[in-house]
């Protein structure tokens, strides 16, 4: 990882990312005033933070700041860095299980979900906001602009690079951003939130994405094996009541942390006071804050002032519960399955490296996510979407 960081840092520097130990540079503006410009070891930090799916930016504007992410090439490399290790781990998984196809299957499921997320975010950004047209803004793509909803985005990146970055950062628990999440169209922002709410399993964090997806694989296998008339097994290991209890506990922990946290947030005065917006957008702000915290994503929807005592404590507690009550059962599943005898596969065994399994895994992730968050999302992003088209903004 260190050599890659060195190479990436140098590429970033070549593209114009600043890299210095000096704190500030004072420049004279055209009007003759003195301007203090903050600089620092940005390139080296960018390289390592994105590879480690950590999203903290050197500048508050994160990857939309020209010193952090100056060109389309650096933008592309940053998206790639975010996904590289979580995606690479699926191949490690294939190697460790002795069957590369097992890893490829998990990778394929993640890729399908990721591609869908990019498609959804892109198409809603492309469709734009009808109210902006009413207000006189031109949202049609032309030689001089990408078109669509460019509010809160860097013109350098346009909607394409912004939605790709937005999908990657929410899918892979990175949290770095190159556009304002809050300014996305409602359903596009909702998609970003769903990426996290699914449990950060679409590539996810380095390590956490893989084990999160494997919990869903255990659930998918449980249903699939029953339907072919066998007691459930994954990778030749039987899945009994113990593994089931642990896997379901992990799923429950994430759902409970997000839902209970947000529910408290939307009915307490302290929770409501920190909102920037009212109505469904305000609900999305609160939902996003808890979802991002529990998913260890770190990206902010913006708008909500999370630096209040209420949110510091509430999100902190939810983050702790949502993370550790997920990790502990996962470790326990690993321990329990490692101790089990391996069952050799036969024609009656349901193959977990087939396209059918990939489809089923995607289905289970979506169904569990949809069933858990549909009502909350219906009153947040979905309602906002319909109201936006009715000309109501928040």
């Amino acid at each position, binding site marked *: 990882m260190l050599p890659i960081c060195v190479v990436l840092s140098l590429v970033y520097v070549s593209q114009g990312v600043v890299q210095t130990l000096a704190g500030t540079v004072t420049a004279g503006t055209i009007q003759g005033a003195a301007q203090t410009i903050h600089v620092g070891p940005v390139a080296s930090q960018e390289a390592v933070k994105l590879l480690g799916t950590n999203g903290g930016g050197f500048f508050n504007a994160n990857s939309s700041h020209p010193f952090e992410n100056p060109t389309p090439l650096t933008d592309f490399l940053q998206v790639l860095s975010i996904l590289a290790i979580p995606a690479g781990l699926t191949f490690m998984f294939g190697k460790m299980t002795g069957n590369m196809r097992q890893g490829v299957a998990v990778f394929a499921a993640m890729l399908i979900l990721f591609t869908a997320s990019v498609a959804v975010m892109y198409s809603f950004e492309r469709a734009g906001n009808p109210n902006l047209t009413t207000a006189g803004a031109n949202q049609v793509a032309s030689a001089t602009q990408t078109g669509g909803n460019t509010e809160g985005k860097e013109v350098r990146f346009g909607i394409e690079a912004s939605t790709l970055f937005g999908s990657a950062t929410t899918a892979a628990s990175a949290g770095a951003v190159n556009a304002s999440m809050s300014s996305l169209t409602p359903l596009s922002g909702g998609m970003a939130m769903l990426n996290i709410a699914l449990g950060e399993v679409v590539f996810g964090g380095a390590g956490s994405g893989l084990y999160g997806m494997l919990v869903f694989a255990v659930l998918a296998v449980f249903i699939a094996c029953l339907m072919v008339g066998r007691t459930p097994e994954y990778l030749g290991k039987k899945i009994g009541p113990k593994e089931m209890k642990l896997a379901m506990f992990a799923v429950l922990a994430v759902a409970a942390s997000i*839902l209970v946290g947000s529910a408290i947030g939307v009915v307490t005065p302290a929770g409501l006071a920190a909102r920037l917006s009212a109505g469904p957008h305000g609900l999305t702000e609160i939902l996003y804050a808890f979802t991002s915290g529990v998913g260890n994503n770190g990206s902010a929807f913006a708008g909500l002032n999370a630096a209040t005592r209420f949110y510091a404590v509430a999100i902190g507690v939810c983050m702790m519960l949502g993370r550790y009550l997920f990790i502990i059962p996962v470790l326990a599943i690993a321990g329990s399955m490692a101790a089990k005898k391996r069952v050799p596969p036969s*024609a009656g065994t349901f193959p977990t490296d087939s396209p059918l399994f990939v489809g089923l895994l995607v289905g289970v992730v979506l169904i569990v996510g949809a069933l858990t968050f549909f009502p909350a999302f219906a009153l947040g992003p979905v309602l906002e979407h319909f109201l936006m088209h009715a000309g109501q903004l928040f």
Partner: protein
Amino acid sequence: MTDEMEMHVEAPEGSAQPRKRAGVATSRELVREAILQSFVKLNPMSLWHNPVMFIVEIGAVIVTFYVFAELVVTTDQGILFLSQIALWLWFTVLFANFAEAMAEGRGKAQADTLRQMTTDTLANVMKGDAIEQISAAKLRKGDTVVVSAGETIPGDGDVIQGIASVDESAITGESAPVIRESGGDRSAVTGGTKVLSDRIVVLITSEPGQTFLDRMITLVEGASRQKTPNEIALDILLVTLTMIFLLVTVSLEAFAMYSGQAVAVSILIALLVCLIPTTIGGLLSSIGIAGMDRLVRHNVLAMSGRAVEAAGDVNTLLLDKTGTITLGNRQAHEFLPVPGVTEAELADAAQLASISDETPEGRSIVVLAKQFGIRERHLHQNETEFIPFTALTRMSGVDWQGHRIRKGATDSVIAWVESLGGTVPPELEGLVRRVAESGGTPLVVSMDDKALGVVHLKDIVKGGIRERFDQLRAMGIRTVMITGDNPVTAAVIAKEAGVDDFLAQATPEAKMELIRKEQAQGKLVAMTGDGTNDAPALAQADVGVAMNTGTTAAKEAGNMVDLDSNPTKLIEIVEIGKQLLMTRGALTTFSIANDVAKYFAIIPALFMARYPQLGALNVMGLHSSQSAIMSAIIFNALVIVALIPLSLKGVKYRPLGAAVVLRRNLLVYGLGGIIAPFIGIKLIDVLIVALHLAR
């Protein structure tokens, strides 16, 4: 004991056909009893073992409370709406209870018939030389009883003296009487069966309350039914889903309050009940009971539900050649004497060696020998000593008038002849090979130190068995033929029958070794057996099916008993096991997939008043909030009833590969589970509007 023994030559018993047991209550009585039971099961103390339904019942109680509250203070929901919601919530629980009661009812009816047999039986216990009459219920293990023609055998045991024909129809449903005799593999008798002829002395082998009949009653009744590991795992899935939906509904109230449209508790309960997996939750236990019942109807008794599930997982089937792969018994086909011996001489010796051999093969030798003009003869005990077959010597015969006549496996008889100082003519080997290569079984016959020749026993492979094995292979199950034959013979038959592998010259030890080897590779092994020497292997196998005609030891070692004593049944047992798991999986998928449509029915209904724009989610175009909520809850209840037959019958089973089965079931129960409720809820909505049941 008589001094003389009559040689019996009789036709082998006809192959047993599974028959419907008499005395099962009619379906109308069953339904009436099940309806009664569904109300009895409302008792929270008994319902709480089914957490999903327990939650529904709590919801029903709360909504019922709101109905009465409505009488005092009216709300905008109205008494008509609230009382219908309460009613359908109660129906949901009742329907689930009904499904369970229906499944239990079938078993109970059988149990009642069986129970009548246990009462009123008197036992003639031998106390020294005296015989004392006591109630059968007071019999202890180790007692010896005398049972004469016309009497009912008072308890399970082994015949230690005599031979009798026994009517076991009460247990097996098979009306043809069976022979039970002391010694050998046909000595076990079951309490409740009736002696038809002769008189036997039985050593009781079970304590009161633990007889075969008692165990059978508890099994068919489902009284001692314990949840299997897979059922527990599925329960965990369902309970956690219920908890998640509880969180979803409770947090929805917070989001709803935020959005300025608080939802009434009764409607939240309706939403919760729609979302939690009531379909599978309500049908789970009936699926399990019905699976056991399906086995009982195939005349197989499983000692635990765990064994049934294991049957679905079996990787390797050990099948005895005889009776399973080949038609019941080998028949003597021809006598092949070595040079210098006539066919008649060989036939004569072979018949003598087979007189005490009650096996069908032995009888067929006697029958074939008759064609050489050799008739039955009387052998006097004092000059005759029968040498029974043992697994160790692998030969049997008779010492008669100073001659030692033996017949048996080639190498055993050759060794025996040589040990007496004789030499074996070189032609014998050719004869043996000729028989073996044609797939027959050679039986070498010797008199004293001379090998006389070979009896050709012919095996006939059962029709259709090859297709059966092809199906098993598609399901991923390997079949191994177990036979005492030599490897050459075994290979011919194995090829003809299409088994994957065979174990030739199988001794109980070799069988055991094979099971251990398979299990060491992580495979699950199923086998059938009847003899005492099968007992260790039956116990070692993951699914051990003992034949009812077998010894007590075999029956105790196995985890299933086949009352028809038909070894082919193993294949059906595997299918029933798979079907049980498939039904569970299919209904779970269906149940969860249903939720998508229910969301689209209820969520817009809840908030359309405050946010008419959310009406865009009302894809079914349901009439009103009230009609939408009612349609969803009614669909939810009715779908349980609609699926009761499926839960009892099991999903259609086809012997196909895993991927094909999964694709088909995902299409039917996954996709179907998503689409069906959209249609169903819409239809119910139309009906509700037509009947003016909702605003």
